[in-house]
């Protein structure tokens, strides 16, 4: 059974890491989770981001869910927001595409232009 004591250990470990590396969030991932996104597989997209973050031990990335944004024909839609850079919106996402975006964009800093449907702000 998972207990709150396990969390205490995690917190201590994370705090040690933060002392060394700082607690900056480098990239924010926003997964569109409106009705049409869900119907098109947005939950699996969200799950794959969470799996990749856990497996690759990415500690400077956060993921959130949001409602529809008027790109229903391109669902599932994902925004990647990096400080000081234009927002990148990826469309028609699948778990496979998520894995590629994690490696290329989040880890190596190269936008995967084939999947981009909008940029801005």
């Amino acid at each position, binding site marked *: 059974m998972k207990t709150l004591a396990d969390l205490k250990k995690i917190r201590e470990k994370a705090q040690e890491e933060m002392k060394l590396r700082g607690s900056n969030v480098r990239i924010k991932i926003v997964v569109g989770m409106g009705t049409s996104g869900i119907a098109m597989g947005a939950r699996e997209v969200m799950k794959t981001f969470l799996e990749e973050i856990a497996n690759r031990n990415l500690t400077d990335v956060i993921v959130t*869910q949001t409602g*529809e944004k008027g790109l229903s024909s391109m669902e599932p839609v994902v925004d990647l927001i990096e400080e000081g850079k234009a927002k990148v919106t990826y469309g028609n996402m699948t778990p496979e595409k998520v894995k590629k975006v994690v490696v290329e964009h989040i880890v190596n800093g190269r936008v995967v232009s084939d999947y981009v449907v909008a940029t801005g702000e």
Partner: protein
Amino acid sequence: MQDISLHLLDIIENSVRAEARRIKIRVKANVQKNLLRVIVEDDGVGMDAYTVQQAQDPFYTSKLERIKKVGLGIPLFKQNAELSNGSFKMASEPGFGTVLTVDFELDHIDRMPLGNLKDTLLGVIIGHPEVDFYICLIYSERGKEQSFHLDTAAIKEELGDIPLTYPDVIEYIDQSLNEGIQNTNMEDV
């Protein structure tokens, strides 16, 4: 939507958009009563009686987009409950929140499966760190009851300023949910 867990995700997203800060989710399977019940209770902005009616109409949407003319989430969930001889009830009060109670006949041939409850719950918990989730799963069969409770407020309190997206935290919540879902036999309902 192929299963109940996807409808549940859609409904929870509605609660989040209604500015809920605390969402209670209960899933109860009762074999003797032949009942599968899903309850989502939020403390969001709530709706007046007219809006509650409107929300069940497929051509109504609360979203203010230019293009969007339909809101199918609630009508489809309602239809799927009614197809399995169940019911769909929505109670709400402006300023207090909304309670949704959806019943399905457990062994009805047209009842959609519960589906992947874990993926739905993991996504909403981590994807909405500003919202506290209280989750309760209960499975009863022949007088025996197995239950699972998870309150994310307690988890966040323990974590302090460590984000829920911290890799070990994702694994912790994932495993907690998995254990709870297995212990309450909810993986193949």
